[in-house]
């Protein structure tokens, strides 16, 4: 409820100003990359449901409208290293 994210562009804001963009799970492919189907399937479909720190994407729709990468502790909702 009271999760706050320290947006590098806008300052500390409540999470309700952001959209959750999911867990950052590896680099998505580009046309140049060779796609390993099994690895790509795992990246898109498998979720590890971490109890602890995980890296996530957040979109600051009610602020700078930029995507941020943040480390969040799923146990305490403490957010670190926003960039």
């Amino acid at each position, binding site marked *: *409820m009271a999760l706050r994210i320290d947006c590098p562009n806008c300052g500390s804001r409540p999470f309700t100003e952001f959209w959750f963009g999911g867990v950052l799970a590896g680099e998505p492919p*580009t046309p140049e990359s060779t796609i390993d189907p099994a690895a790509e399937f795992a990246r898109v479909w498998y979720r590890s449901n971490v109890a602890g720190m995980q890296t996530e*994407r957040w979109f600051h729709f009610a602020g700078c409208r930029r995507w941020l990468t943040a480390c969040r502790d799923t146990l305490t909702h403490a957010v670190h290293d926003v960039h």
Partner: protein
Amino acid sequence: MRFMTFIDFEGRKLPVRDGDTVASVLQREGVTVLSRSFKYHRPRGLYCVSGDCPNCMVTVDGEPAVRSCITPAADGQRVARANGWPSVEHDVLSMTWFMRWALPVGFYYKLFTMPRWLWPFAQKIISRVAGIGPVDLTSKPEKLERRNHHPDLAVLGGGVAGLSAALSAARDGESVVLLDEGMIGEKVAPGPVRSAIDDLLQAVRAQSRVTIVERSPVTGVYEGPLVTAAAAKVLHMVHPGRIVVATGAAERHAVFPGSDLPGVWLGRGAARMAGVHGVRPGKQAVVVLGTEESLAHLETLRKAGVGIKLAVAPAALAARLPTDIPSLVDGQVVQANGRRHVKSVVVLTPTGDRRVVPCDTLVLSLGFTPRDGLLRQARQGTVNGAGQVVSPGCSVDEARASGTQAAQQRSSVPVEQSVANLPPVPEAGIVCICEDVSVGDLACAWREGYTSTEILKRYTTMTMGPCQGQMCHAHLRAFVRQQEPNVQWTSAATTARPPARGLTLAQASAGFDHHLELRTALHDRHLEAGARMGWAGAWHRAENYGDVLKEYWAVRRQVSLMDVGTLGKFRICGPDATEFLDRLYPMHVRTIREGRSRYTLMLNEAGYIFDDGMIALLAPNEFFVSTTSSGAESIEGWFRDWKETWKLKVHIVNQTAMLGAINIAGPHARELLSRVSTDPVDNAAIPYAGIARVTVRGISCLAIRVGFTGELSYELHHPASRSVELWNALMEAGADLGIAPHGLDALKVLRLEKGHVIISQDTDFDTTAGKIGLDWAIKMEKPFFIGRPSLDRLASIPPAKKLVPIRFAGDSAPDEGAQLMVGDERVGYLTSCRYSPLLKCGVSLGWVKLASGVLPAQVVAVSSNGKRRDVGDIATGPFYDPEGAKLRA
């Protein structure tokens, strides 16, 4: 006149004095039975008088379960007691007490299970008998506001410790929010504590940095940290840097046979009634003294005119009793007798004699239980307890010092959950007064194998009632501790969770009704035309203008306008724009010619459809992209995510708000447009799927020839500031062509006749293009696009169901959502269905299961009540104009 105001109590007018609570009004008028207990319908009266116990809960102005002891009495208030039959005063259901042998703990798991058909009847009876009052289903809750606070320090509780903490922090230059569930000091009878509170309050009020929020019970401490407090008309959301919990202590709950009878009071409660409200709790009292402050309570009671029949006290306190009071040193009250009220109490003397003392009131000061629910809820951030919540029974000076110290703590001091202060183990009587759990029930549950506080609590529901364990949690721990002295964790404190105090659904949902409302520039124009507006996501759109059929025929036979300004509209340009869109979309973007557009689906990385729209090339590397009305916001996020991930040179401009859009649809659409446009609009200038700049009455428009309705149509995208002007010009010019605007209701019929899918109405989150017959929109020959690797994998799984058009004969259409059957087997459901005035049949889309890869030829649609059955033929293409001749006309 002394009495100016009255409350309405079950039809009687009862006078209210200054400072009265509902409970003090009732006590003054001799109403002693305020409620009936949850399970056995035992009579219950005032007990703690501090907002903790459930006994005083009544219905106030239609709101059930209101604690009368902390609710100020107000003129005209309607107060009634709940949960008694025929009345709370004389409750026949109290017979259940004599059937308690048949209703053991967890009886609803054990009885009525065989035969099975008995349970629904039993459940009905149980839910009528149990409970704490009916909810008025006709009442409409108020929409309440939220108020956010961001102080350095939040202080929960305005007693000596809390006020000291607030004062200390404010003097250090910090901002403070001080929350109290009542008015600060109101619960405390005149005396040294009350004087200390009054002085501190005056000092705190002089500090501009302290915001005092009264009559706002704190309902929870959440992660963040966030503190929520439910005032009558506003939900306070406090986001503090640190928290000091100074909720104090409640007097220790007494457990012995008859301890729950009306007439049994806790010491502070009786003193409050006598000292604050000037109402005596009873005429003849037995008083049990066990705490330092109980001597003062005794004095307060005497002043209010309560006769003291006997004072039971340990030697140290007994020595300080006034000499004219009959006393008993080191005695113990073991029983209270009476049917509806205390008539006598049984006292055990140190020599082991039982003495029966006739009286109407028993006042108990046995010790303190910290009011630590909120302290135990707080699990992160800097949270510290101050005053009696951490050291029950501490003096005024100790509380003052403790508050000051807690305010200055910069880290949390763990709360010791010691067993040292637990009450003696109860031997008999009702231990949980909220849920009517007796000591015998606890023992029974223990024998059944529920051998720790956490599971005993769940099985017996003890500590789970309105008091949230304030009364009986310590007794529960003491009980387990006695049974299992060697295994520490079994008697640990249970997890405390919000809400700590009750709150209404209106309070819980405060602030959630502030919908974002989006209106197009033509909103007022629609209202003038008599439109019925409806929600479409955040947008307000015209559903119809009064006559859906007329609107429908205008599109099919003449010409019609629709406000499509809600569509998501984007300008995407920059050196990498083509590359960017080609990677994003499953169709060919590189081959779109200048001045042409293409329909496109949007896939997520799982290969599932989440939106659709149109892509048009205006100039090299400059695209105009439209999305669905609901998708615009999230798709901007989607665009920006991929742009940043791929680091491509692309500008993304969301033009949704700056551009208006009007769709001109119908056989006369070209005729109408040519009348008002200064540019050519014939098939050579704007062919089907073409896009061109046209100037209409001086307004520069982007005309796109696309159609959702199946008729010749042009979407005119234009500056939103000129929407009204353009709309009026078109309506005027089309008057002799039979023009009429159409709304969403007509559109839903029109698009179904064409078999067009609405993403998210007809599709699910796991819909692939193949399942809805849009394979052609996915270009698998493209080596790369988002979702492609997943589609490669999904290709090996044959689809289990498909979305297909279905035609129903007859003069009305089946319900949307109707189940589709083949024989006795359920094979799917309808996602959209309308009656087509032109084709004179029902037209629909529905999901149908494939049987060995084959669709059935016919299905039966069964309405939700099972009464209506329609036979439908599965079609292969659009019902209307399958070749698209009208679109290309």
